[in-house]
């Protein structure tokens, strides 16, 4: 009997260091499944961020470079420009991408660099112990906003997908989540599509994934899912913000799924 559920080939057989209820592991898995589905492990280079996923290369089995905080899009640009035949993806947190690395991601997207960014938005700095991020919600308490995020002092949370979608350069920009099983298949399709756009050398592709950080939100995994659904999703609406050519993509994704 065929196995219906097994470890992706591009994933090492190890357990991750992520906290219980953290969705970094699920997102890793979707990336690895995509690498398997498109059969691109032998020509893929991942770029690990600074943040909780700094050791993503311990879980996803392909060539990897480890970035400095926020600089992954510049590194991906360097690789992709000199080796356009490689499949390159960055995997970045919200502190990494929306704060220190804002310049790098905006310019890479605007140049239409042909790589894929997986942007994990958990509305907080996870690795360094729960400080405020540019994506932290109004009144959300963090270790550096102990009285709650004051928007009159630090502005509203940045919606990266919408911000990048204002760029005139063609791109695929979408927001997904993996907090509940019903979201996961959609997120997987989006990640696959993002990689296919790269494979076809069509455009920059960006998949924002709303994630959880029960540890630094100070919640149980169950409450964290609820909070993400009640508070994050209304402000960070799911769905595609921009696609270069939906019809063609649909066909490619279907073909990859069939193979």
């Amino acid at each position: 009997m065929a196995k219906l559920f097994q470890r992706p080939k591009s994933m090492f057989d190890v357990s991750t260091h992520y906290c219980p209820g953290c969705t970094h592991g699920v997102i890793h898995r979707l990336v690895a499944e995509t690498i398997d589905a498109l059969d691109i492990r032998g020509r893929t280079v991942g770029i690990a961020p600074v943040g909780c996923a700094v050791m993503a290369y311990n879980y996803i089995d392909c060539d990897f470079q480890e970035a400095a905080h926020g600089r992954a899009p510049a590194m991906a640009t360097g690789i992709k420009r000199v080796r356009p035949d490689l499949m390159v993806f960055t995997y970045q947190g919200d502190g990494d991408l929306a704060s220190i690395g804002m310049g790098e991601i905006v310019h890479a997207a605007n140049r239409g660099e042909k790589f894929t960014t997986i942007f994990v938005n958990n509305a907080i700095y996870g690795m360094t112990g729960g400080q405020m991020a540019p994506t932290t919600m109004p009144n959300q308490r963090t270790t550096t906003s102990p009285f709650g995020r004051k928007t009159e002092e630090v502005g509203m949370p940045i919606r990266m997908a919408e911000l990048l979608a204002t760029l005139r350069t063609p791109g695929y920009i979408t927001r997904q989540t993996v907090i509940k099983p019903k979201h996961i298949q959609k997120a997987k399709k989006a990640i696959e599509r993002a990689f296919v756009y790269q494979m076809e050398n069509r455009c920059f592709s960006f998949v924002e994934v709303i994630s959880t950080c029960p540890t630094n939100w100070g919640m149980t995994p169950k409450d964290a899912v609820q909070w993400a659904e009640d508070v994050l999703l209304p402000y960070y609406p799911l769905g595609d913000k921009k696609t270069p050519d939906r019809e063609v993509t649909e066909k490619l994704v279907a073909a990859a799924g069939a193979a």
Partner: protein
Amino acid sequence: MSKVLMKGNEAIAEAAIRAGCLNYFAYPITPQSEVAEYLSWRMAEVNGVFLQGESEVAVSYMIFGAAGAGVRVFTTSSSPGISLMSEGISYLCGAQLPAVFVNIMRGGPGLGGILPSQADYNQATRGVGHGDCRLLVMAPASVQEAAEMVMMAFPLAEKYRNPVMLLGDGLIGQMMEPVEFPDHLKSEPSNKDSWATNGIDHRNGTTRNLVRSLFLDPEALNNNNLILRAKYERMKAEEVRFEAYNTDGDYQVLIVSYGTMSRVCKTAINALKGQGIEVGLIRPQTLFPFPDVAIREAAAKPSCRTVLSIEMSMGQMVDDVERCLHGIRPVEWYGKCGGEVPTPEEIIDLVKASV
């Protein structure tokens, strides 16, 4: 190829292509922008890569990504730009990646000026970035030498899997001189398959390569730093380069000077010869590793009474000169750092005052 008349910056650009480096990322800054302007069309001609990044910070990571993918890659900048690249340079050292950085120095600190200077000596030779990192630093004194050093820099960077810096003052970049280029070299690091993220299929492998600088385990980090230290020690043993000028006979004064400044010193030395005063010169061509032994031996000559470190900075190399002399001779510094180059007359007066 016969000799052509070229600006230093353009010669550096052309030399990189001849060295087989077909990948260039940069951000404009005076006095080196001509490198980017030249390569913006020349790279297209040779099917190479030219990209103007959005900042020096981004450029240093474009360099990292490309170097990590196993190709020859370089950038050029000037002082404030190099400060911004310093983060990336430290990461390149930590991850042991080869790349070439050219710093056509201007005065500082801060925005400083746009005229020639040698004020980034300490920054270049003491590591540039954070952590225990070091660069191999070469200092040309002519357009021809700048071209030759660029051609040497790539194989050296690959030999040590470490960034190499060409430290030129603004005059080297701006002046025009005849230059002759050797033929093209090959274009990729020879040993790259063992470490580069160039695609598992590309190297017919099964296991992946990993480029990183994070070592959370203290023993692993210490070991990585010991590996780096061993490389720096090997550079000290194998890569010291210098020129000795007028050091055969007896001299009362020894000058240590590099780059454009050393050429002015030579003019002064020739003039002083006519007046019966002999002065020797050691011109470091590598600033790290520093020619300690050559300077100590030249200063130890019985006739030599004093050593002058003459620099277009407020006294930086002088610390290295003092360090390698172990106190056997008094050392004096002379320099300027507003963009004016000290004149031969100033140096003649200085020498006369010290004999």
